[in-house]
């Protein structure tokens, strides 16, 4: 039996190495709401990514939510020299009006290593609405920057309206910080209606969710994220390794789609 365990583990290691994981959900800074999680420090990034078989990724900072977007973006600027190869950052954005001090997406040119933007409408006190976020979305479309948002920060009708208003904007619904499971009905309905809506997989864990989504919408609509250090990256990684889909589809979810999105960004 131990031999079987060893073989299963080794097969997974080899498969994980081959798939080229690129992690959309790496978080620096002190986690909030996860009392058992320990902060991931910049000097631990490389090791943490190696443990999760990630050879690239998108790094975010808790401060962008908990303190202010600008403080989070500055914190990410500070870790720039420590970013591993093929690893970029996601800045936090605010609506472009009223105008606030930076650094913020939409104010001047975007630093080269910023390859994604995240919003926290609920935490930062504004509605997810065209009249509030329209100018930011136009700017993101113009710079080919994907928009990330936690599902706990949005309401589904508003996201649908925004996705329809900006079909050229790639919107990645992130499955944290509570179960996306309970929102699977609106999530799947929205994915069917709006081809620019993608889903990040760190908590996309309902039985058969991956297979269903790939079958209905295509593997290009799913993006691997670990949400480490709050979550163990081996969870969402294992979901992809063991999914009943093709290796090409796994590779797309594991990293190809995120790399393509990050590669299109124009500073």
């Amino acid at each position, binding site marked *: *039996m*131990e031999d*079987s*365990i*060893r073989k*299963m*583990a080794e097969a*997974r*290691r080899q498969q994980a190495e081959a798939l080229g994981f690129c992690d959309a959900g790496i978080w620096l800074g002190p986690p909030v709401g*996860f*009392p*058992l*999680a*320990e902060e991931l420090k910049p000097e631990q990034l490389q090791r943490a990514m190696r443990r999760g078989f990630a050879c690239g990724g998108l790094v975010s900072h808790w401060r962008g939510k908990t303190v202010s977007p600008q403080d989070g973006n500055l914190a990410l600027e500070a870790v720039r020299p420590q970013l591993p190869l093929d690893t970029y950052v996601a800045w936090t954005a605010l609506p472009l009006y009223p105008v606030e001090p930076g650094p913020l997406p939409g104010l001047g040119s975007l630093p080269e290593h910023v390859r994604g933007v995240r919003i926290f409408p609920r935490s930062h006190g504004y509605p997810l609405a065209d009249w509030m976020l329209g100018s930011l979305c136009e700017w993101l479309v113009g710079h080919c920057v994907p928009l990330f948002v936690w599902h706990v920060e949005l309401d589904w009708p508003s996201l649908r309206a925004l996705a329809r208003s900006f079909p050229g904007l790639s919107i990645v619904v992130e499955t944290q910080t*509570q*179960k996306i*499971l*309970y*929102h*699977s*009905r609106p999530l*799947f309905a929205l994915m069917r209606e709006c081809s620019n809506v993608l889903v990040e997989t760190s*908590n996309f*864990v*309902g*039985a*058969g*969710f*991956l*297979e*269903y989504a790939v079958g209905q919408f295509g593997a290009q609509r799913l993006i691997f994220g670990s*949400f*480490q*250090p*709050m*979550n*163990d990256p*081996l*969870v*969402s*990684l*294992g*979901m992809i*390794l*063991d*999914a*009943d889909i093709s290796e090409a589809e796994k590779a797309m979810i594991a990293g190809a789609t995120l790399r393509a999105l990050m590669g299109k960004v124009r500073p």
Partner: protein
Amino acid sequence: MNGAFIVDAHAHIGLPGVFFSPQSCAEHLLTSMDRLSVRLAILGGDQTTIFEGPQAGIATLREVYEQSRGRLWYLGVFDARRPEDSLRVLNEAVGWPGFAGLKLHPSVHRTWADDPAYEQAWRFAADHDLAVLSHTWSISDYNPVQRYSTPERFEGYVRRFPQVRFVLGHAGGRGSGRHQAVRLARDYPNVFLDFAGDIYCYRLIETLAASVPAEKILFGSDFPWMDPAANLSRVLLADLDDRVKRKILVENALAVYRIRGAHAEH
């Protein structure tokens, strides 16, 4: 299922009304088990018996066991809101093939885990040498019913019924309940932890293995709420000795739920 050897110590079947589930029935679970080398699963009730009690459908679980050729074992739900009804049905089911113990769910049944209503369940388990699995979690600010199921509330019964093998399902959850769960598993020989569900904390398996004896930790999926694949690789790839992984993935569940003979053989 050639070569399958893993035991999933915490799964369910049935359509969960609260979310869309593309895979939720016994056939889906068996297909998934085949793909992941899972030989047996313990069903901690199905949707009907969890929400309405064993009288609402435990016979169906026996049929599922038989149709699965002995792969899907099941627990009888003790509904603390209807203790007499539950016991009447459980008394009948206790000798059925595939019946492996009791399931408690204080949060669903809105009955505190230390409520006297559970006395009969624990006594029943003691009298019949059964294991008891309960849902447990931490205090949650967005899911207040979890307060019915925090681990420390079980301690009185654990102490009074040392002969009952008691599994803290979900290992106390993602917050302070975990510390209590670990404490109970350390302090009481009859307390075990399963990590079914979305207890996806960083290096959880290594942390648990460093905190309690390896014999105390059980692999579980919480299907269909979670895909069984979610918890498997984190064990296989954990920084642990293969003998420890073997206990977690196979042996501990067989021992706790007293699954022996041909069913237990690899």
